[in-house]
């Protein structure tokens, strides 16, 4: 009945089961870890007041969010346990974080009226509001209308801030762009020896017009700045340090200790939205990652536009047209193997061939006026997309070929027997049937491209791109610009940031976003592939 455990080799079976179990535990716990750390970042935690008596007898009041607890290795928790508080107020304390020894804490309490103010500069403020100056009038915290006025001041400042942003990005950005274009026009005329007085005068005139317009706008902007500086709020920290915060410096203010659970969930989603749709602040350690998302998406779209037709054509050629022999088989294996070539090699190739050679030649031919500043002769969006298209080409080719080979011969023969030409057969029957396979290939390519960082470090990404590659200035898409990328953002903020500790939650959030996107893409691809397999399984019999 029962075989001997060791003799039958049963222990090896368990051993193997353990291997796959460990692998699964690793994947799941990794994703869970990223998810927990990334998602908890947005939750408005309660703010506590810690009263401490230091070892030398001095009293200290600290207030902040409990961030972490730690017992130094091997120490007695009762004596050495430490807690990490996020106390904010970087402009007053110098650091956002403070370690407290648990044994020194004499009292922990929670005050209902704690105000957390998220600022554009200097990070969060934790403290209490005392007085708000709104429209020239002072409202004390005891006034009935205080919170209403406070909120009005913030809303107004945010509105003005948005206006300024729009002006800067929109009209003023456009004028700067046009001025730059005029400068290049003049340089081009000079280079081509066509710089007649007439042409120069025309350019000068247009330049003057733009400059006038610019001054008007600038004056308008300064006026708005002045307006934005009208309101301010007087606050005080827990240890009694007073501070005046300008309303224009406030992103949002909240009282987490008063918020109900539902309000907190609401606030959570506001923060998530801010993360996705806002621009980064404070050297990428706060705010959102919108430019990185935008850059990633933009690059992936451009890459898809390039990789799909070429990949499909190559696959169709290999599978339908090329004579099946030694050469085709070799090519097939070679293409397959290109998928295994390290991505950094593609980066090296992209930098040397696309950026320096092709880009340099394009600059020489079409943009002599911009020299010595390179236009296409430097890393940018176009070269990054092409490099990644080359990198993902094997994925699309292999996947499409697999799809083509799964279509039964009978279908092709049926079409040909009815008098259709080869291309008609391809176009009307084979390709539509293989389209899910192409889709799978494309999705896998996108997933790979979205997560690839190493080649991009050579051919296009930067830590902070001042302008998006897409804007309102003709020709609207600026392929030569540098861009931000989610994967590189993780590397840069996580490893190159001056304030790694403060940036870490945001890096986890970014990582989670990236993982989520890539997992979703992959699961879609897997689903499509499985459905395709099922579909043709029935056809084969």
């Amino acid at each position, binding site marked *: 009945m029962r075989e001997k455990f060791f003799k039958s080799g049963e222990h090896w079976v368990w051993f193997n089961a353990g291997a796959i179990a460990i692998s699964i535990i690793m994947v799941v716990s990794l994703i869970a870890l990223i998810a927990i750390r990334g998602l908890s970042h947005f939750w408005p935690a309660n703010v506590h007041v810690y009263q401490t008596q230091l070892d030398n007898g001095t009293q200290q009041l600290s207030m902040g969010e409990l961030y972490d607890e730690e017992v130094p290795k091997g120490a007695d928790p009762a004596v050495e346990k430490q807690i990490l508080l996020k106390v904010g107020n970087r402009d007053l304390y110098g650091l956002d974080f403070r370690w407290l020894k648990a044994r020194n804490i004499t009292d922990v309490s929670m005050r209902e009226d704690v105000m957390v103010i998220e600022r554009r500069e200097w990070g969060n403020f934790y403290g209490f509001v005392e007085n708000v100056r709104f429209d020239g009038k002072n409202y004390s915290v005891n006034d009935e209308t205080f919170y209403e006025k406070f909120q009005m001041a913030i809303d107004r400042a945010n509105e003005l801030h948005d206006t300024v942003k729009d002006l800067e990005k929109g009209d003023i950005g456009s004028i700067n762009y046009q001025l730059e274009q005029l400068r290049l026009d003049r340089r081009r005329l000079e280079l081509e020896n066509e710089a007649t007085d007439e042409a120069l005068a025309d350019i000068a005139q247009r330049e003057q017009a733009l400059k006038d317009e610019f001054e008007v706008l600038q004056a308008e902007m300064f006026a708005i700045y002045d307006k934005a500086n009208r309101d301010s709020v007087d606050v005080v920290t827990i240890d009694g340090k007073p501070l005046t915060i300008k309303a224009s410096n406030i992103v949002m203010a909240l009282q987490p200790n008063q918020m109900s659970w539902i309000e907190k969930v609401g606030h959570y989603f506001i923060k998530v939205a801010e993360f996705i749709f806002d621009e980064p602040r404070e050297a990428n350690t706060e705010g959102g990652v919108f430019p990185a998302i935008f850059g990633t998406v933009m690059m992936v779209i451009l890459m898809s536009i390039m990789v799909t037709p070429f990949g499909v054509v190559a696959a169709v050629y290999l599978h339908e047209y090329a004579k099946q022999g030694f050469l085709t088989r070799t090519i097939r*294996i070679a293409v397959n193997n290109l998928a295994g070539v390290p991505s950094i090699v593609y980066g090296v190739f992209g930098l040397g061939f696309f950026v320096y050679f092709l880009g340099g030649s394009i600059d020489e031919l079409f943009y002599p006026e911009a020299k010595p500043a390179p236009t296409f002769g430097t890393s940018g969006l176009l070269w990054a997309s092409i490099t990644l298209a080359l990198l993902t080409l094997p994925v699309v080719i292999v996947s499409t070929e697999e799809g083509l080979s799964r279509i039964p011969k009978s279908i092709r023969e049926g079409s040909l027997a009815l008098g259709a030409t080869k291309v008609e057969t391809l176009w009307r029957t084979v390709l539509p049937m293989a389209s899910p396979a192409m889709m799978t290939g494309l999705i896998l390519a996108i997933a790979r491209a979205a997560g690839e960082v190493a080649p991009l470090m050579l051919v296009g990404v930067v830590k902070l791109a001042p302008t998006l590659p897409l804007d309102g200035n003709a020709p609207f898409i600026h392929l030569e610009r540098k861009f931000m990328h989610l994967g590189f953002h993780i590397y840069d903020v996580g490893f190159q940031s001056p304030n790694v500790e403060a940036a870490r939650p945001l890096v986890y959030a970014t990582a989670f976003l990236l993982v989520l996107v890539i997992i979703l893409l992959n699961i879609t691809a897997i689903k499509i592939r499985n459905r395709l397999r099922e579909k043709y399984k029935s056809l084969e019999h």
Partner: protein
Amino acid sequence: MNDLNNEYDTVKDRVRQLLDKQTDSGHHTFRKIKDLAAKQGIAIGGISVILAVVMIFFYLLYVVFPIFKSAEILEQKTYPVAVESSVLWGMEEYGEIGFQLKADGVFSYFDALTGDNLSTHTLSLEPGETVTAAQFASHEENLVILGLSSGRILLIKQAFRLSYPDGVRKITPDIEYPFGQDGYELHDGPIKKISAAKSEEYLSIIASDGDKTIRYVRYMLEESFLTDEVTLSELNDQTIDSEISADYLLHDPTGSWAYVISSKGELQSYWMEDDELVSNERLSLTTQNVQITDVKFLLGGISLLVGDSKGDIHQWFPVRDETNTYRLQNIRTFEFSEHPIKTIYPEMRRKGFLALDGNNQLGIFYATSHRTVLTHTMENLTPESELTINSRANHILISGNGQLQSWQVENEHPDLSWSALWGEVWYESYPEPQFTWQSSASTTDFEAKFSLVPLSFGTLKAAFYAMLFAMPLAICGAIFTAYFMAPKMRTMVKPTVEVMEALPTVILGFMAGLWLAPVMEDNLPGVFMMLMFLPIFIVAFGFAWHYMPSVIKHSIPDGWQAALLIPVILLVSWLCLEFSYPIEKLLFDGDMRVWLESMGIDYDQRNSLVVGIAMGFAVIPTIFSIAEDAIFSVPRHLTNGSLALGASTWQTLVRVVLPTASPGIFSAVMIGLGRAVGETMIVLMATGNTPIMEANIFEGMRTLSANIAVEMPESEVGSSHYRVLFLAGFVLFVFTFVFNTLAENIRHRLRRKYGSL
């Protein structure tokens, strides 16, 4: 039945009608043309895509290729400019203007390409005074020190001013006196030999009147606050008896060393200490009967290049010995010719040099790479011939017969050679030959160290530890999934592994560097306990499960063992981490890291163990998928036959399935290795990226790929550094391509073999 036949006929008729109509209307031909065009189009498209991919290989090769090219020289022109009687001659940076200084103090400038006279400049000397010795004190600043017949020294600066009238470069030569026109009295008699060293703050000069008496003066440079004028304040004035005749007198640019060398080969070296020259050592540079014919400093003034009458050029530099004193050592010898070396001329921006021998043979050499880049026999030279090269090293002038020969040089990458890239090289100031990668530094006279060995070592080290971690997990996991696992669980496991494969490596690297590395440092004993106890407990649990009452045992069907083990593994891991500190206290005095260091094992937080786990994580799914596929596709009737003969499932697996699938598993490992070798982001983030050669698992490494990512953006296009990085990329490309092709071939063979079974 009849209906159907009728319908068939009508359809046939209609098709025929349609075809006839098409033929009449020309639509048929149009379709044919369309078909042909599509065929051509697709063929062209397909082939060009494949060509584009092939181009990667050839482009990399194209960039790498110039490394292996040797130098070329091209004769430009010979023109009558006699430099034989001049005390100093040379060219400015661009090699456009040549200059010579005659003993009477007249600088004359000529076009270095045509020999046309440009201008002259007369130095203000006392009546009857002549220039008896001239040396560059600093090539970078074009500072020249002159020794005069009156025993006076004079410092002059050659200024070559650039202007761009009409967009064309124009160079105007001029002479400046940065330390005034008066000069300084050094000797009573004429100065025969002189050498000077100038740094930001100091100027030191050694001079000799041709006898054994050496005069050493050292000044501090004091810049006046109001004007930019620099005055010299004397720190030391010393007279030394060198005991050997000062045929060659050399003072290194930092002012720390002075060498007196006689043509018989004796050398006396001095070391500067507290502004004073102290005798360091006396040795002989040659064997008997061999004369020294020229001595020059290599760029930077660390190495001496000694040419002798046997036709060899030796490179010597001081090396610190066990007693912490510097001794000159013969580092390498260039066996140039059979004839005595006539003159040596070092390049001004690289560690290369040129030499002429007694048979008028020109040689171009590079010290670090120990490479003779070019030898060429010149014509129309005399025994007095000399040569010079501009600081961009693309233009040589050689004198002879009252004429100058102007030669163009193309010598882009003398610093790279097989031995420089893959061999042990004795770099300047290093105690012994080493494999070192250090591509750049802040100083201009830096000796670039381009050894790919530490990088390749790092790459293999990272791949080794990754495979050590990944291979057992992936292969065992694949065996279980393909052979034992319940189909329902398999449909859940496979997508999980595919998701694992898709995880961006930047995230794995980030987690490894910022989370895993510190956690592991804190729980080192726990990690090792996990390695030890997890297998034991897994088997123990299996044993216990095997002898469970059948009620419990049968509540879980066969093939779900892996799911059962998940809580066990979690529990054991947690316990290991919990007991980490107590064990550490018990066995390692409370801190394993300190304990390791006391055992002489260095510990970096971001070490190979972290990389091994993180990169193993990335490699597991690759190996798993292919190996699982190979095992799963072993024909069922093989296993059924074995089972029917009474073998247990495990015996069947080991004796039948695995041998059949082994080529597939092998190819999975190859492809996994390829991935581990080329992985960039994980290594970049999870190690300290120091190019060291230590097999120690607790230290980091720098891999070829990470090195490219770090250094490529800063490397100058077309420089040796740039091409070496391309070479690294090329090596990676070829390595992974060969491995993958091998693996793929094996897999195909396997598929064909068992497809027929």
